[in-house]
Structures are given as C-alpha cells and as structure tokens.
C-alpha cells in the first residue's frame, strides 16, 4: 500500500519533470534545417566529413551491405534471441506466451512502422513529435550521406522498434493476457516509442546531439535511452500495474530451461554488434571500435557479475554470467561510439554492479515482481550507461565540460523516464478499458500457453 503510493508519487514526479523538459525544447528546436539522415550521421562520422558535404552521393555497397546485415542481426536479437532468453526463464506453462510476445511485437510493429511509425519518429515535425509526411514510406527513397539507401535506415530502425516492446515483456511475463499485449504494443510503440526516438535521434529532436538547437545535446549512440531505459521503465510500470504473480516470491519454480536462456543471451550478444556497430550507419573505424567495445563490455560485465555472485553466494552461476553480459551490453549501448577502451571497461563494470545490486539486493526488498528483471537489467544498467557516457566520452558535445555533458545526459534520462512512466501507465489503463490486461487466477495457474494460445510447448509422453 505504502509502497504503491510512493511509486505513484514518483510517477507523478516523472510526469511533471517530463512536461517541464518538453516545453522549452519544443520551442528551442524548431529550426533545424538539416535532413534527418544527414544530421543523424554528421555527428558520428568522424572520418568521412567529405562525404557529408559532397552532395551527389553515390551508392556505397560496403556500407549498404553492412547496414542490411546489421538489420538482420538486430532482428536476430528479438527473434529468436530475446524470445529464448526470456522464454527459458519462465515456467514451462508460459514459454509460448513469452515467445508470442516477441513474435507479436515483430509482426505488429513492422506493420505500424511502415504505415505511420517511421513517419512519426523520423518525419521532420518539431522538437517533440514527427509528422505524417512519410506515411507509407512516402518519399523515402534515395541515399543517405553514407551512400546507403534510406530504405535501409527504415529497416534498421524498425528492428529497434521491434525489440523494445519485447523487452518490456520481461516486466509482465507470466501474467499479461495476449490480446491486451497486442493492443498495448500497438499503442505503446505509437505513443511512447516513436516520440522518444524522435527526441533522441531525429534532426529536430530536443535531445538529439546533432541538432544545434537541442534543449539538451545528449549522447545516445545506439539507443540507451530510446530502447533500454525506455523499455526498463515501462516494464517496471507494467509490473506495478499488474501486481504480483500468484505465489510470488516463494512458490515459483526456477527457470524451466536455462540452456534456452543462455542460447538466447548468446544470440543477444552476437546480435548486439548489429545494434551498436550498426548505429554508426557505416562500416568505418567508429563502427569497428563500437563493436570491439561492445564485446569487451559484455565480457567484463559478465566477469563482474560472476565475481560478485562468487563473493556473495559462493558460486558463479550461469544465469549470473548471462545477466551480467546483458547488463554490460546495455550499459555500453549509449556510449560505444563516444568512449575509449578504458571508458568502456569502467562503464561496463559499473553498469553490471549497479544492476547486480538492484536485482540481488534492492529488488527483494521492494517486493517487486519484475518477472525477468527487465527494469533491473535494462533500466538500471541503461541509466548508469547513459549517465556515464557524459563522463567518459572522449569528446563532449561542442567541447563543453564533462559535467555539463553529464547534465545533458541526465536531462535525457529524466525526460525519457518521466514520459515513459506516465505514458505507459495511461496506456495500460486505456487498454484495460478495452480488454482485461491481467490474466485471471484460472488463466494464470493453468498457464498462459494453454489459456491464451490453446497450445502446450512440450509433450510429456511420445
């Protein structure tokens, strides 16, 4: 009771902060003349200044090949990476429902994206919202400044939009009804994801470091705020809104298939190269270092978690290893194109430590049923990574102090956090008016596989 109130209060606070954050930005950022692609790229491409100014860009087959394969890798993160990672951790009777969260996200978001999502996110619009100029990908042709067809950018960004609602599922797994999930995903991507992507990555976005008029020129190389903090916080809100699973926390079975979860984590790891290196939008030196730092961050974060587990539980667990690796990957995501090797190592260690502390110590005290620790891992490590990017970036934006950059990062984090917290809660209430969100006791004890999909994942006898 008390806690729920405290949380509501915090959410309210987030709302206010978010509102406060948006208003000045909306004013300040209305002038950016650059096209999305150019602006987006201009900042990250160090070695290719020439390419940006030379107008008649020709197709660069290397960059195009790279970005198409990276898109495939990022889709692989969701299908089947995240699906397996999450699916292996739930009980046998719910695995299909988790796989379906991922599949449905891929299906629904893809359709949304090409119809209006891309336009909402990357249409010029203003500092806060996109516009409808690119409905049905209208006019999205030609090449970007790296010689990559703009349609590839649509595809690449689509894979980011797909994974985000699927990540949220970690917060409400084992208890959200499937029809409600579909509706939730539809609304959430449209109303939460698209705006935030616009803020952070679009030419006129009020948090986009490439926008000279941005309210806060925050660095987010590959989606720390847009994807991970966003999904993590939304997952937290869902977990609170839906309440605990029956039997939580003591009468729940352990992960039903840890090898699945590990395979899923491995595919996340591999796919993350597409996510992080691909966010450079070209196969160049920045992409190369982003890839290497991604690898190192995953590794050192896994080691960190194992060591902490070893010290505090006596054994290094496999679930700990993959959780740590994912936490490291999350933490390095906003940073990987802006920091150096040592920065990556530190960010990963701190990100994993923070996530570990939350998941292992804080969470049990909060009595919070964040089923698969979507907030604990993506939210916490995402916030740590986003903030530390301000401190460890090799060059701050416009040469401001690292503290100032840190403040920019903080602003971006707070805006995202507030907006998604409030927005997600409202969407859940809305969805609940249309179709019950929470599985009832019968549906939950029988398992969502049978109750939502009329299927069982495995046969017993054969």
């Amino acid at each position: 009771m008390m806690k729920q109130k405290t949380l509501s209060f915090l959410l309210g606070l987030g709302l206010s902060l978010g509102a406060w954050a948006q208003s000045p930005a909306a004013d300040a950022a209305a002038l950016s003349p650059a096209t999305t692609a150019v602006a987006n790229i201009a900042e990250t491409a160090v070695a290719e200044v020439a390419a940006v100014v030379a107008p008649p860009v020709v197709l660069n087959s290397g960059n195009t090949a790279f970005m198409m394969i990276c898109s495939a890798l990022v889709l692989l993160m969701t299908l089947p990476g995240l699906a397996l990672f999450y699916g292996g951790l739930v009980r046998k009777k719910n695995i299909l429902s988790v796989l379906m969260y991922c599949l449905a996200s891929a299906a629904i978001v893809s359709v949304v994206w090409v119809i209006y999502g891309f336009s909402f996110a990357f249409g010029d619009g203003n500092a806060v919202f996109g516009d409808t100029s690119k409905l049905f990908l209208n006019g999205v042709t030609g090449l970007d400044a790296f010689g990559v067809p703009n349609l590839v950018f649509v595809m690449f960004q689509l894979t980011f939009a797909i994974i985000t609602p699927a990540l949220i599922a970690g917060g409400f797994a084992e208890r959200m009804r499937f029809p409600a999930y579909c509706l939730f995903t539809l609304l959430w991507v449209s109303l939460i994801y698209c705006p935030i992507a616009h803020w952070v990555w679009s030419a006129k976005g009020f948090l986009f470091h490439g926008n000279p008029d941005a309210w806060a020129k925050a660095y987010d190389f590959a989606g720390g705020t847009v994807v991970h903090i966003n999904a993590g916080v939304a997952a937290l809100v869902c977990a609170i809104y839906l309440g605990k699973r029956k039997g939580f926390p003591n009468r729940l079975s352990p992960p039903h298939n840890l090898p699945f979860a590990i395979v899923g984590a491995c595919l996340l790891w591999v796919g993350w190269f597409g996510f992080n290196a691909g966010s450079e939008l070209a196969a160049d030196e920045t992409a190369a270092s982003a890839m290497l730092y991604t690898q190192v961050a995953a590794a050192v974060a896994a080691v960190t978690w194992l060591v902490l587990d070893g010290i505090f539980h006596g054994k290094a667990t496999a679930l700990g290893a993959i959780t740590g690796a994912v936490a490291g990957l999350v933490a390095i995501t906003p940073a990987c194109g802006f920091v150096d090797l040592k920065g990556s190592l530190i960010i990963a260690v701190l990100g994993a430590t923070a996530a570990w502390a939350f998941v292992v110590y804080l969470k049990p005290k909060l009595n919070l049923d964040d089923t698969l620790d979507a907030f604990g891992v993506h939210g916490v490590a995402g916030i740590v990574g986003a903030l530390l990017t301000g401190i460890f970036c090799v060059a701050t934006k416009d040469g401001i102090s690292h503290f100032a950059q840190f403040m920019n990062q903080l602003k971006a984090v707070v805006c995202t956090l507030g907006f998604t917290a409030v927005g997600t809660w409202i969407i859940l209430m809305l969805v609940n008016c249309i179709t019950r969100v929470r599985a009832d006791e019968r549906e939950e004890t029988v398992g969502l596989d049978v109750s939502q999909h009329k299927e069982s994942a495995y046969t017993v006898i054969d």
Partner: protein
Amino acid sequence: MKYIIAIIQPDRLDEVLMKLEEKEIHLVTVTQVMGHGRQKGIAEVYRSHKEGGSLLRKIKLEIGVNEAFVQPAIDAILGGAQTGNIGDGKIFVMDVGQCVRIRTGEKGNDAIG
C-alpha cells in the same frame, strides 16, 4: 501403514503440499503423469488439428503414512485439490507390508514418517 496415491490437477500441487504440511505430513513423492479420463481439457489446436485432449497433464502424489495419518492426509488432499470440476482426480489408499528408511535401515512405523 498405508500408501496413498493421489492424482490431482497440476496447478493444485502447491496448495496440496501446503495443506499436507499443515497436517505435519512432510514426506511426499511427486510424479508428472498423464491422465486419461472423462475430462476434456481446454481443447488445444495445432493448425488444422484439434487435440481432443485425451491425455491431460496430471500430478501423482505418493505418500506412505501410518494409520493415524490416513484421514488427515485425505482431508489435506481434498482441501487442496477439490475445485468441483471434472478432472479433479482420485485418491487410492493401499496397504503397505513393510517400510525401510534407507539412511538408517530402520523399519516399520518408525521408518515411514
């Protein structure tokens, strides 16, 4: 000494174990089984194929007890597993001739509990 075999719905397991513990019955052996009965489950569908649900997931409990615990055990099982729906299951009670605790080699009534 009696050997109680109970077939219950899988989602009642926790409940039944809790009720048994309340009656101080701690030793139970649990098996995953399939039940063939009158109950038709929520029909499952695989593409065109509707599974009639002729074999449904069940849990089998086996409990060796002294006579004094038979009725409490039955009550506990009924208490935890009864929903009033078809498929709730059965309890069978059988005689046990001998019981040995492997750890100590103890026999009979002392061994069973």
